[in-house]
């Protein structure tokens, strides 16, 4: 079948989609957007979290056909959605790097979409609110402490989507990223 949807603000079309394919598979394997991750493919880990018409969902649990005509935002579209030019990071993306919230990084795209959604709803969440909002996203590396730091840092820097220039140094130059939110 053919599936049409808007992905990260652009109309996209996928052909020859088998009816059993998930939105996650179409994004990753047919539309060249592998940022959404395939850690469990059973809706338990949140690593494939995308926004579907504005609502965070596990893309692995959405049949490709259900996305027909709808609006999808993936991790690849977070900066664009925040109105930033190519190559810039959104506040929450920047904060994840600065706070040390990224280790292996496989959970990161889903956590970013979930955190972005939280900060859009609540620009100054409490720790308990952050934990609740991110409780559907498993991370195996960090123990979540640095992820909490990152969300606090993003909130302190102006939260959901505001353009942020902080820490945009050449990485090879070694930014001193001690994040004391």
């Amino acid at each position, binding site marked *: 079948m053919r599936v049409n949807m808007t992905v990260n603000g652009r109309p996209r079309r996928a052909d020859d989609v088998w009816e*059993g*394919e998930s939105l996650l598979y179409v994004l*990753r*394997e047919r539309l*060249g*957007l*592998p*940022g*959404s*991750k*395939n*850690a*469990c*493919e*059973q809706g*338990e*880990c949140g*690593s494939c979290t995308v926004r579907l018409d504005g609502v965070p969902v596990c893309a692995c649990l959405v049949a490709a056909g259900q996305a027909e005509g709808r609006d999808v935002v993936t*991790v*690849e579209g977070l*900066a664009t959605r925040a109105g930033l030019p190519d190559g810039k*990071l959104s506040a929450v*993306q920047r904060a*994840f*790097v600065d706070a*040390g919230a*990224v*280790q*292996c*990084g*496989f*959970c*990161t*795209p889903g956590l*970013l979409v979930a955190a972005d959604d939280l900060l859009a709803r609540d620009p100054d969440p409490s720790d*308990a609110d*952050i*934990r*609740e909002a991110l*409780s*559907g*996203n*498993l991370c*195996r*590396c*960090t*123990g*979540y*402490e*640095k992820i*909490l730091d990152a969300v606090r840092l993003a909130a302190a820097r102006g939260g959901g989507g505001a353009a942020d220039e902080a820490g945009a140094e*050449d*990485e*090879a*130059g*070694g*930014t*001193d*990223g*001690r994040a004391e939110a």
Partner: protein
Amino acid sequence: MSERNVPGRLASEGLTQGSRTRGGIGESTLRPDGTLKVTGEFAYASDLWHEDMLWGHTLRSPHAHARIRSVDVAEALATPGVYAVLTHDDLPAATRYGLEIQDTPVLADGVVRHHGEPVALVAADHPETARRAAAKIRVAYEELPVVTDETSATAPGAPVLHPGRTDGHAAHVPHPNIVHRQPVRRGDVAAAKARAAAVVTGEYEVGMQDQAFLGPESGLAVPAEDGGVDLYIATQWLHADLRQIAPVLGLPEDKVRMTLSGVGGAFGGREDLSMQAHACLLALRTGRPVKMVYDRFESFFGHVHRHPARLRYEHGADRDGRLLYVTARIVLDGGAYASSSPAVVGNAASLSVGPYECPNVDVEALALYTNNPPCGAMRGFGAVQACFAYEAQMDRLATELGLNPVEFRRRNAMSQGSVMPTGQAVDSPAPVAELLRRVKAMPMPPERQWETAGGGPDLRALPGGVANTTHGEGVVRGVGYAVGIKNVGFSEGFDDYSTARVRLECAGGEAVATVHTAMAEVGQGGVTVHAQIARTELGVSRVTIQPADTRVGSAGSTSASRQTYVTGGAVRHACATVRERVLALGRTKFGTYHPAWATAELLLEDGKIVTDGGEVLAALADVLEGEEPVEAEVEWRHRPTEPFDLRTGQGTGHVQYSFAAHRAVVEVDTELGLVKVVELACAQDVGKALNPLSVTGQIQGGSTQGLGLAVMEEIAVDPVTGKVRNPSFTDYLIPTILDTPAMPVDVLELADPHAPYGLRGVGEAPTLSSTPAVVAAIRQATGLALRRVPVRPEHLTGT
């Protein structure tokens, strides 16, 4: 944490001094792959794509032990879209592989020995086509009796899982279903028993834990025109994979070119091969690129797990609270194939007493062959199981003696100069008592922390959470302490080396360093640290980290908390060699301009060659301009170790020890058996924190995996059938952000004079003591004995 950034010259290593260049060691520089990982552009193994690629799929055994009577692939092969179906009969060369013992069939050879063992492979043009075709392969199994524990595995007439063993352990094991057995004997236990004022004995059990890395086993094999294959893969050790894959393909190693792709965590679970050889076999058969990606269900069958263990301990102490003796018997279930069981046995035996001085020891550790899932490496590697048991024993002995458990541990804590049960003297700082003091001194979380300003409870802070099972009634707090000891690096005489190639050149008018190693970056941050080392040693700000591949020599495994030590050491030494050559080049070009070129000690700092007095002699770029790049490749080894004696366990078996202590605060709903870990504080000595931010991340991540083992994580294997009952994230639980508490970390930096920069491997120690600290806290809250992890609600309610 120390703010000093003095690289420190180690006379024993014969190096000149590094510099204080910005972004060097000791700073919390950011990950070089961080931006790619937050934009979604970082290419993990499961993200790879190639034109014309096929999808591989594995058919696995539904039985734990069965003879294969026949395999019929005709219908599968006839499925449109299917390009190849392979069974054991199609293998071109070696049919078995293994990390230590080559006992693991590439595809089942007439017998399957565990649930989920690979039987056949399919390549097709769509993953679903491959899955459906695999379901059409007809395998006739004849089920065989299973052995699932020590009793059944060593019973008279028990099926021998690997008859005719010729491996190096076969001659000394008491039964062919025992992979390896290591005793450790020291002192005179019988005499010590007679003097003991307090004796406690206990039997303990540790469930089978899964690494549960989030990035599933994946890779892409691309056949090459020269008959070889290029494999892009998520692994922990490229060269160990290569050593095992090439014989299976019947190719020389130079025809199998491996490149590390993005790795979504590892924790030991990628030490063994999973789909590496399978994807290459399918690619070579079809002449097409083949991608294989496990789903989570298959991942639970696709890698080895942490050995479940049964441990029997007896501890005796004198009236003053000093340990007199320890006896222990540690039985690890290695499952169907050896994997790294022998090394896990060595660790469990040699570290069985913990970070304590004890003059009289009689210990035996062994690993079994059973029809349970194969077990091997997981963070903590044999030391985790022992730590749960000996720390429970230490608490009980303290109670028996009427001593505070921290005070009792302090009286017995080892320190520099202490002698291990193996006879090895600990010749670097071992601040066990200090770590306990520090973790105890941290402020306690407030009582009734769930109460809000308005008076009502915040359910999210209570056991049971928003399930609304309690508003505080029936909730009891407990506090527990534990400390552990882990070896760093490969032990028992293993030639544990790393290779690093470093180049310095002028590019765009600036000195630029390039570091090339085969180190597997699995998330730990080795790439960050390599760049920091290069900046410190070469005084440059721009460092490029080359992708890890097999075009450079082995970097050893990303395991055993060893990479910063060993590959970091190799990078440091390669940089030092480059530095000497650059200084020589500078003397040749500019030496006549200033006498200091000949007389002063020279440093590379901030892109310049300076004297130790701070006088600038030349810009590095000017020295390198117009010259060939200065390059050095170094193979670097840590101090040698030796095997443990097979009868006594005596020997200088370990390179370095690392120590962490935890304090856990829990609240237990005693009516429902629900546990909320309120805080998990850790103090750890890291020798030197090369990247403090990463060090803290390792400690918190390791602590959380220990928490998981304490209260939720276990692969449930049916004791009758040997089948895995919970291979999913629905049924195998790992801690969420709601299960994980605040984790304050106190980092101590006492340099190990034998290690690069004085550093001590960080990654594993926090995984050890976390588990027993949490369980000790639950014991204090409930008064229950709790001899098994994970602790489940029914263990707390008795229902």
